[in-house]
């Protein structure tokens, strides 16, 4: 089967520093893969290369066999590569609902409709509200995004990604800063997406318990290179990973 996402010798250099260095990776559709690696290993950069935020200095990304080299980040989103951001990145002065509604709007083909009142697109609003329910933000719906606490912004970030409804979801530390109580709820959201079985998911996380629980496979980045790629068990037993990443702390 053709892999849905593939990279060949993907590399990027910032000055002399190779942040991502010759990564060859591929994953089948509807697969759940997690990426782990020490801080600065190049995980976010790897995402940036896939989503088109950055241009590789070498190598290429393939979506369903087609090269993405010439595609801008906008086009990639439209082709089905959606992402969330590690550093919260929302529309600060718009309400939570509007934030999500924009994402829904992007998915539907109403972008260039200039003279209909947007409130007439009831289904867009309805869908946005439904997503807010999923990410537990219904009661904050009409609050302006910069009034949210950090954890709440993280939830909004996920909500926007869900609203985009892309085939591939790139999740960059979705639960960082989320409270103990709420992590499970978000996990549930992610799990339910996985279980619906129509999405391909790439997840960056540092919470090992969560990763092991969810992932079909795990890949490890280290200093920009692909250190290992395998089932959760294989990875957890890997000596090098233990040393380079987990340290003495296995996981809870």
């Amino acid at each position, binding site marked *: 089967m053709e892999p849905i996402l593939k990279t060949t010798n993907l590399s990027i250099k910032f000055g002399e520093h190779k942040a991502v260095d010759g990564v060859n990776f591929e994953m089948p559709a509807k697969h759940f893969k997690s990426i782990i690696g020490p801080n600065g290993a190049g995980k976010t950069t790897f995402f940036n290369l896939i989503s088109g935020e950055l241009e590789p200095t070498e190598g290429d990304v393939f979506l369903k066999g087609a090269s993405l080299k010439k595609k801008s980040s906008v086009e990639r989103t439209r082709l089905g590569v959606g992402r969330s951001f590690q550093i919260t990145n929302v529309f600060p002065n718009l309400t939570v609902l509007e934030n999500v509604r924009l994402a829904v709007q992007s998915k539907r083909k109403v*972008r260039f409709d200039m003279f*209909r009142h947007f409130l007439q697109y009831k289904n867009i609003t309805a869908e946005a509200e439904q997503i807010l329910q999923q990410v537990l933000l219904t009661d904050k719906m009409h609050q302006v995004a910069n009034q949210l606490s950090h954890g709440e912004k993280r939830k909004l970030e996920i909500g926007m990604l869900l609203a985009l409804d892309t085939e591939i979801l790139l999740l960059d530390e979705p639960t960082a800063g989320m409270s103990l109580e709420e992590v499970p709820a978000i996990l549930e959201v992610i799990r339910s997406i996985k279980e619906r079985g129509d999405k391909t998911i790439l997840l960056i996380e540092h919470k090992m318990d969560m990763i092991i629980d969810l992932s079909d496979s795990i890949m490890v980045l280290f200093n920009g290179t692909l250190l290992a790629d395998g089932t959760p068990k294989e990875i957890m037993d890997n000596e090098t990973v233990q040393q380079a990443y987990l340290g003495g702390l296995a996981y809870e």
Partner: protein
Amino acid sequence: MIKQPSILSKTNLFYALVVGVMIVLPIAMDSRTLTILLTQFCIFAILAMSYDILLGYTGIISFGHAMFFGVGAYSTAIMLSDFGPTLGSFMASIVVGIVLSSLISIVSGALTLRLKNHFYAMFTLAISGLFLVVAEKWRTVTKGNDGFTFRAPEFFRERLYFYLFVLICLVIVFILLKRFVSSPFGKVLVAIRENEQRTRSLGFKTLGYKIIASVVAGAVASLAGSLYAVSLRFVNTSVMTMDITLDALMMTIIGGVGTLIGPIIGAGVIEFAQHYLSGLARDYPIFERWIIFFGILYILAVIFFPRGIVGTVYMKYQEWRVKRGRKSATLKFVEEKE
């Protein structure tokens, strides 16, 4: 649930009332001065609204808005004087102005709308500076800095008719722009203003949106310029100067950016304050330096209306609702803003 927009909303009725008053006022007062003042006000209100599309909705500061105004003004002036003062050539000149402005917006936008903030602002300053030079130098057509007079179409010689025409333009432009900004397209513009990079990663081609926004703004400004030329029956290079841009900018900011109705109010405040203050100077010699008071007006506006008149009133209203403990406050606020 959010209420659906309705034509018979309170706000719309209020607007209708205001328009009614604006129609009746000059007729009832039978004052041409008032008619002219109101005409100027409407024209600048249109210009300021067009600026708000850029500044308030898309978050673009432009220092070159006058060039679109000027293009409109010159198109109309030149066509009316060359092809005769008919309504036909007037309408044609509006179209020509709009087409030219659109072309300019597209070219300059494509070149530099990727730039951020000051850089784009300074670029527009440069481009409009160049246009001013062209207007100055192309003397066979523009008569340079002195400018030239021309005849208005017969129908507009009666200033009241012209005023009503301008008022209708204002209303139509307002309705269209209101639709424009509250359409899904307009929402994307706001998103660009808030966080352009994020908008892009949601799958919107922001450059295209920005160019269209600047085309719309340019076209409306050009319309304002055409009307302005006819209202004066004269045009010179002053229509292209920084002063016009600054006027539009001030009106927009004083009224409240990103509100559309704000710029109209701002235009009113500035036009009437200017008229009134300079009138004071005539009657009371101590007001000889009335411009000082005018400047103080700006300063006070920022201090007391930090978000512009409309923006600040909305904000205060919202705070008041929260203080009253109404749960629906934010909801109401959102709805009214939209």
